[in-house]
């Protein structure tokens, strides 16, 4: 998803612009201003791009006002960058809200629980201000069952709920949404933690035909009432996307597919037979035939407990697939390769099978996005020589735009090859799981490889680096990474210079996340001129002192500087050194100052 300027940055710009350059008084216009505003309103309704709207809002006060009246979709990249009150004051006709909460490193247990990012104040404010609200998308927010209940009763026309990487709620909250949101078209629970309240939420959908177009619950780790699900699918004629969880067996999946051959996206659940010994007495359903009947199917995922012998059943749809997610499947190369060889039109692939990459490179010429996850996500596990896989992909999939690749070790040659073969890359995220691992053939740092990436991939906006890296790598990133908006660094660099290179060199940098790297106060201070223009900076287990962080906070009043430890035992004030050391720094710009809901372990400097 392309990251665009968020509300606070644009609002910031407006405030600054209007303070520095107030609209000049002019002679009365020939026609009444409200007519002009009307015209403008009608024109602006066609503008959907956030960037365009941000630009428009800067023209003048009246344009700013009209733009605010006609903005129906609001994107807030950091829920703490402004208060809900400010949102509702400025934008009065919001129909769709996208809120992002915790920073990404929270996914990796680097943030203590109960840090914040609660949906509660937002749902309360929008319930009052936007009764016509139709769509809410949340990422990394804490959402409670009460929040969901309030949402369900406050917005009679509510249509779409998307919860990505959220937590705090359970099946009881989902049940309320299912039951009360009668216009619901989309209910997508994606990679979220959903507590099992032992509520049959599927049965809570009202009787009669539904408006459902998309239902995703593959992250719900509790059994569902299959009969109710089947009934729901039958009375949802508009259903296009259905992602079931691993408690749906292959036989049950077959039933669903037969009921809904119009599906375009299918999450296949367990993809294993519920009768362990295969067909015993009863005839096995014709799975291939069911897949064949789904002529519109372009996206497949699931395969949570894959029984490989049934996988060939998906062959009839392989040629039509544009998106395939095998990353939860315990899939071996022998099983993966024959399947992938039919997927000529794949544009997005998620897998753990890095040994099948040669086959991918030979077949998937339309590949745009590739994510290879580790089968064994630990540092010292054995794995194939992955440099060859990366090289093969770069030679075969020239249209590649985005790659996330986990491996144990890598070579500069392979990374350089990718930089040369895939000029369309906008996202390059390489995770060499062995910390500080050099090029395993030459023994040299991975500087050259990543340097080649920033030099050759001129469209690069997102970069994640790993392996043994010196300050030289960061010098290159600063020199060539002029379009980079998001940078992730872990266990890399030699000194403050590394950080300086980035902060002084990358003008478009918005999101910087660093862990376990030897960057200290000098490096941090060198970015003073940048932090107002960035969405956030995260630095954990680096070499920062409280003093430097405090300086930032004092110098930049519109930046909120949070300091906390990854453990809750921050009460180690016995040693002065410890008290001065900042384990985790998370700072972000905000229009409304420090938040009031910070837990005890967070110090706002």
């Amino acid at each position, binding site marked *: 998803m392309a990251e665009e300027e968020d509300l606070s940055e644009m609002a910031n710009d407006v405030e600054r612009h209007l303070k520095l350059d107030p609209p000049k008084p002019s002679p009365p216009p020939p026609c009444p201003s409200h007519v002009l505003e009307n015209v403008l309103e009608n024109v602006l309704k066609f503008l959907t791009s956030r960037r365009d709207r941000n630009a428009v809002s800067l023209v003048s006060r009246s344009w700013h006002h009209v733009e605010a009246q006609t903005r129906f979709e609001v994107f807030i990249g950091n829920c703490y960058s402004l208060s809900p009150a400010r949102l509702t004051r400025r934008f009065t006709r919001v129909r769709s809200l996208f809120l992002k909460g915790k920073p990404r490193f929270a996914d990796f247990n680097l943030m203590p629980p109960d840090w914040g990012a609660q949906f509660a104040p937002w749902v309360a404010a929008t319930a009052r201000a936007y009764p016509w609200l139709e769509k809410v998308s949340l990422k990394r927010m804490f959402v409670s069952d009460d929040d969901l209940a309030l949402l369900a009763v406050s917005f009679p026309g509510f249509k779409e709920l998307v919860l990505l990487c959220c937590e705090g709620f359970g099946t009881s909250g989902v049940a309320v949404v299912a039951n009360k949101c009668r216009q619901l078209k989309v209910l997508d629970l994606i990679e979220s933690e959903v507590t099992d309240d032992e509520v049959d939420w599927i049965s809570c959908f009202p009787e009669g035909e539904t408006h459902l177009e998309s239902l995703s619950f593959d992250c719900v780790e509790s059994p569902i009432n299959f009969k109710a699900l089947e009934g729901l699918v039958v009375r949802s004629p508009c259903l296009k996307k259905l992602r079931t969880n691993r408690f749906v067996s292959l036989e049950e999946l077959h039933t669903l597919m037969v009921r809904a051959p119009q599906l375009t996206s299918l999450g296949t659940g367990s993809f294993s037979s519920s009768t362990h010994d295969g067909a015993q007495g009863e005839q096995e359903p014709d799975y291939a035939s069911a897949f064949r009947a789904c002529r519109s199917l372009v996206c497949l995922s699931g395969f949570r407990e894959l029984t490989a012998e049934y996988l060939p059943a998906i062959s009839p749809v392989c040629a039509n697939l544009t998106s395939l997610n095998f990353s939860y499947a315990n899939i071996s190369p022998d099983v993966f390769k024959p399947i992938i060889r039919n997927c000529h039109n794949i544009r997005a692939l998620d897998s753990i099978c890095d040994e099948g990459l040669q086959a991918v490179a030979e077949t998937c010429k339309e590949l745009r996005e590739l994510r290879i996850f580790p089968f064994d996500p630990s540092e010292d596990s054995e794995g194939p020589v992955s440099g060859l896989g990366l090289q093969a992909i770069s030679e075969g999939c020239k249209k590649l735009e985005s790659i996330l690749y986990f491996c144990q070790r890598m070579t500069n040659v392979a990374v350089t090859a990718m930089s040369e073969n895939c000029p369309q890359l906008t996202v390059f995220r390489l995770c060499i*799981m062995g910390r500080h691992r050099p090029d395993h053939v030459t023994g040299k740092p991975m500087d050259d490889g990543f340097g080649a990436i920033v030099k050759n991939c001129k469209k690069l906006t997102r970069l994640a680096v790993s392996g043994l890296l010196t300050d030289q790598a960061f010098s290159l990133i600063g020199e060539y990474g002029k379009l980079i908006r998001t940078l992730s660094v872990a266990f890399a660099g030699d000194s403050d210079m590394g950080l300086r290179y980035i902060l002084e060199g990358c003008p478009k940098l918005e999101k910087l996340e660093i862990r376990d790297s030897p960057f200290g106060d000098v490096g941090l201070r060198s970015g003073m001129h940048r932090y107002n223009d960035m969405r956030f900076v995260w630095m954990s287990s680096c070499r920062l002192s409280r003093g430097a962080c405090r300086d930032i906070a004092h110098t930049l009043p519109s930046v909120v500087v949070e300091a906390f430890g990854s453990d809750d035992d921050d009460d180690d004030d016995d040693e002065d050194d410890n008290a001065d050391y900042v384990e985790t720094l998370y700072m972000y710009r905000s229009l409304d100052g420090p938040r009031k809901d910070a837990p005890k372990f967070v110090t706002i400097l």
Partner: protein
Amino acid sequence: MDEFVNLKATELRLGLPGTNNVCEERVSCNSNNNKRALQADAENETETSPPRKTQIVGWPPVRSYRKNNVQTKKNESDGESQGIYVKVSMDGAPYLRKIDLSCYKGYSDLLKALELMFEFSVGEYSERDGYKGSDFVPTYEDKDGDWMLIGDVPWEMFECNCKRLRIMKGSEAKCLGSGV
């Protein structure tokens, strides 16, 4: 450390077809062995290489949701490999038994256990002639539905492919056992 790294590099577990069969991809079987080996090697090289091994929080950066899923699958597949229960029938015996293949380290282990369970003995195994010197021949049904002589293929492959066991006796056994 370079030495160590290059050694691994020349192992050539490449992503090319045909070199590994399905069973060698059972990381749960292999990785444990390799892990032990790695740890042993790692201990020798602590002086020269950067410190690792201590589990670092949040590294590698895989979401716990995904890790748990893999873990579940690993545990389940560990469960499978810890519990590869297959039926064992013996010609002439009134009922079948069930055994857990993963309890055995190899063929000799397995055969000894079978001999105890059914009170018989297999003959001497040879690649050329199968089992000689006994009326009883241990066989198994593989994934393709064929009846195979136990002992021909590597143990791991056998574990993956074995659907059930049958201890054949008498004339049928003789045909199968004597190196056909």
